[in-house]
């Protein structure tokens, strides 16, 4: 007993205080996304984790009368996790047809304001019920199986159904279908990606997921997982659509562990329902459904019947409006509506004898997830055999499954200005004429003139990547660069800076040789150096005045003047000038080195 108390005291504490640990939110769901004028539907607003909330009593929306019917409270306990939810049920009475966007409901919980998700309701005219996407919107004749219908218990935790838009169809007709799987909102779990449907005698489009929604069935709130598809019968006669299985892992109510019931009996009761749950793998199946498939009616079937079954419209356009000789024009024919777009054939051109036409290209643009509604565009390339002022006409035939009659859509010719060119058709016609007249067929070997015109290339690679071309260009490039270098070097040598650099080099060499030259040659060589430095080799007489203008100290200038004097003496004295002594030579050499370049 003591042990039990130790175990259950925290458990009850969690029971009472744990409620507030879960996040509050508010959601809204329609009992049916579509209805007709005068047929009410319901909105269920669920507020999770709340004991009381304020909701609007009514919502004003033109065309819809929305009023609160009542509320209920639900407590759920799953493995000691307790959640409470408030459910408010509103009645919607549609007063006029149309698409209605129901705004989000504002729900006040304490000091917080929560908003539900907005909803969309299709209201059809009561006289012509047209369900969206070709699907029934749970009309009275096709209401989902009620919980009471399910064997075994009054309230089923889950069930599946197949909703077909019709029970009688033609071979090749596309029948929109929806597989719906209902899960009671009180149970949790995981649901498989898509149901598995295998059968014979029909093909099924890829299943498309529909956003899950909430729906009330026999007063119980269910989460609905739906998958839309299209079923196409492949043979006539009775067709059985087998059950489609959806795998799921659900937390279903389970029995209490041994000893728990005794414990609750001590307190005079039993364990609360939903307190203990088990995770179970389940397979939910839809009920098998029978269809009656008829073959395509033979009476009234056009010879060029396209194979289309449904309801279609046709539009055509041409571009360009003016075409030069031999240029093609494109005739675009768009078939739109609902039906078996994937199996239908192309429209037929009418009165195209003077046009050269080719099988059209086709492109389908679906406006739903099951390729049932949309438009298919065919593009015919047309080349005029002779000058034309209008395009061929277009004809498209289909079977209307509602009436069982074949309908023919026609498009009259469109104005265009197309000129005939030198088309190959003329060649073909010439050949066929020859065949008719029994003349021998022309030899496929061309005459020499034609053959000569067909010189062309003799390689699959462009000359751009031919080795000889690459080598020749690379060689020319190298030669060009070499010539450019030579030219640049020569140009640089002839420039003032080049000449100056050359002079400095010459001067340096002369000064170096002056240091080791014979004493008798010193004066003449030193003067030559001086004249080079002063750039006045051609005019030695100007050397004196140039030395005087040099920015040198007096002593250096005196040494250089002395050198010029010695040179004159050497030139003009008969006895020869005396050789300058070592000291004088050193001073002259030093003075020469000081001359700025």
């Amino acid at each position, binding site marked *: 007993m003591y042990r039990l108390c130790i175990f259950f005291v925290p458990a009850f504490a969690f029971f009472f205080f744990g409620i507030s640990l879960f996040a509050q939110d508010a959601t809204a769901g329609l009992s049916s996304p579509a209805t007709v004028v005068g047929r009410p539907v319901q909105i269920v607003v669920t507020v999770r984790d709340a004991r009381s909330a304020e909701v609007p009593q009514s919502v004003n929306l033109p065309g819809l009368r929305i009023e609160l019917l009542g509320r209920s409270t639900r407590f759920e306990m799953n493995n000691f996790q307790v959640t409470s939810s408030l459910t408010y049920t509103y009645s919607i009475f549609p007063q006029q047809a149309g698409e209605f966007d129901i705004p989000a409901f504002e729900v006040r919980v304490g000091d917080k304001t929560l908003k539900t998700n907005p909803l969309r309701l299709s209201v059809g005219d009561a006289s012509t019920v047209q369900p969206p996407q070709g699907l029934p919107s749970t009309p009275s004749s096709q209401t989902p199986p009620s919980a009471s219908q399910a064997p075994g218990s009054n309230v089923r935790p889950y069930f599946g159904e197949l909703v077909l838009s019709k029970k009688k169809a033609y071979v090749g007709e596309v029948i929109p279908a929806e597989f719906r799987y209902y899960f009671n909102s009180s149970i949790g779990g995981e649901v498989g990606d898509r149901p598995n449907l295998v059968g014979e005698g029909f093909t099924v489009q890829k299943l498309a997921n529909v956003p899950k929604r909430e729906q009330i069935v026999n007063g119980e709130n269910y989460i609905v997982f739906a998958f839309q598809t299209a079923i196409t019968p492949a043979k006539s006669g009775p067709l059985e659509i087998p059950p489609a299985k959806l795998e799921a892992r659900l937390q279903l109510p389970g029995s209490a562990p041994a000893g728990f019931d005794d414990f609750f009996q001590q307190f005079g009761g039993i364990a609360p329902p939903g307190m203990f749950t088990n995770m179970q793998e389940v397979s939910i199946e839809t009920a098998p459904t029978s269809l009656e498939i008829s073959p395509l009616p033979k009476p009234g079937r056009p010879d060029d019947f396209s194979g289309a079954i449904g309801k279609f419209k046709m539009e055509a356009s041409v571009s360009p409006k003016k075409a030069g000789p031999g240029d093609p024009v494109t005739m675009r024919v768009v078939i739109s509506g609902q039906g078996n777009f994937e199996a239908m054939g192309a429209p037929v051109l009418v009165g195209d004898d003077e046009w050269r036409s080719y099988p059209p290209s086709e492109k389908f643009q679906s406006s739903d997830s099951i390729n049932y509604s949309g438009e298919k565009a065919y593009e015919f390339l047309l080349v005029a055999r002779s000058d034309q002022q209008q395009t061929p006409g277009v004809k498209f035939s289909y079977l209307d499954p509602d009436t069982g009659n074949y309908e023919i859509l026609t498009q009259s010719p469109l104005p265009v200005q197309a000129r005939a060119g030198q088309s190959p058709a003329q060649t073909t016609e010439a050949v066929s004429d020859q065949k008719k007249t029994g003349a021998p067929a022309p030899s496929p070997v061309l005459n020499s003139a034609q053959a000569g015109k067909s010189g062309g290339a003799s390689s699959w690679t462009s000359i751009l990547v031919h080795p000889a071309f690459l080598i020749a260009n690379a060689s*020319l490039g190298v030669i060009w660069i070499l010539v450019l270098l030579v030219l640049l070097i020569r140009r640089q040598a002839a420039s003032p800076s080049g000449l100056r650099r050359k002079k400095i080099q010459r001067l340096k060499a002369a000064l170096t040789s002056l240091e080791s030259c014979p004493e008798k040659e010193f004066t003449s060589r030193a003067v030559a150096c001086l004249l080079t430095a002063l750039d006045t080799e051609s005019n030695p007489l100007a050397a004196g005045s140039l030395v005087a203008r040099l920015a040198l100290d007096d002593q250096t200038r005196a040494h250089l003047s002395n050198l010029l004097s010695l040179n004159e003496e050497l030139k003009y004295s008969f006895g020869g000038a005396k050789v300058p002594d070592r000291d004088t030579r050193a001073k002259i050499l030093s003075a020469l080195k000081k001359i700025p370049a």
Partner: protein
Amino acid sequence: MRNLSSIPLIAILCIFSSVLFIRGDYLEQARDRLAHGEHESAVTFFEKHIQSTRPSSYAYYQLGQALQKSEKEAEAALAYRRSLLLDPRFAPAAEALREANARLGVSPSVSGWQARWAEKVPSDPTMLLGAVVFWFGAFLLFPALAFSKRSTILVFLACMLLVVGLASCILATCTDPRILEARQAMVMSLSGKTLYKVPSEDAFEKITTLNQGSTVRILSTRGRWLYVELTGGQRGWLLQEDITSVIPSA
């Protein structure tokens, strides 16, 4: 000894002349068979001729004729297309290709400015001429740099030649069908090929079915699957079986 040294020379001459003879023989035989209505045999000899010599537009055209007579429309269309790749100005091949496409139920592709240019101006001579003009302009720059007098005129002339030569080379490259259609391939399967949105044979992912003779541009390869682009720009995946490259592999 002199006699011995001449033996290899004689052998080389014999081999060379026999190769020339065989080449000429294949072509003559092919033409002869074609003229006598032996189309299948003509196809074989044309193929042998093409394999033994450099590709020529005329030879592919004749092969196409022989294939067409053998009721091999897709193969004939491929041969005509190859003939046009080598010489886009070869009008008989263009006409024959249009005819073959019409019989195959393939829409003729709307030719762009490159194709229209290539039909008028051969790309290889344009490239050669462009290169010559370019280098002439490049070397003309040297006298322009060397001589100070009239250098402006010379530089202008040289620059003009450079631009014209370069533009010719670029134009020849941009309009060369062997470069433009290097990744083109043709559907050869008699039943056509199915184009899928994803590389998987999932019927739900089917985009369309391409007729025999349809051409696609291969963008990439993943295992057995080719990612291709149709003439209209639509892209998808198809299995590479029965897809033949327009430019034959070496």
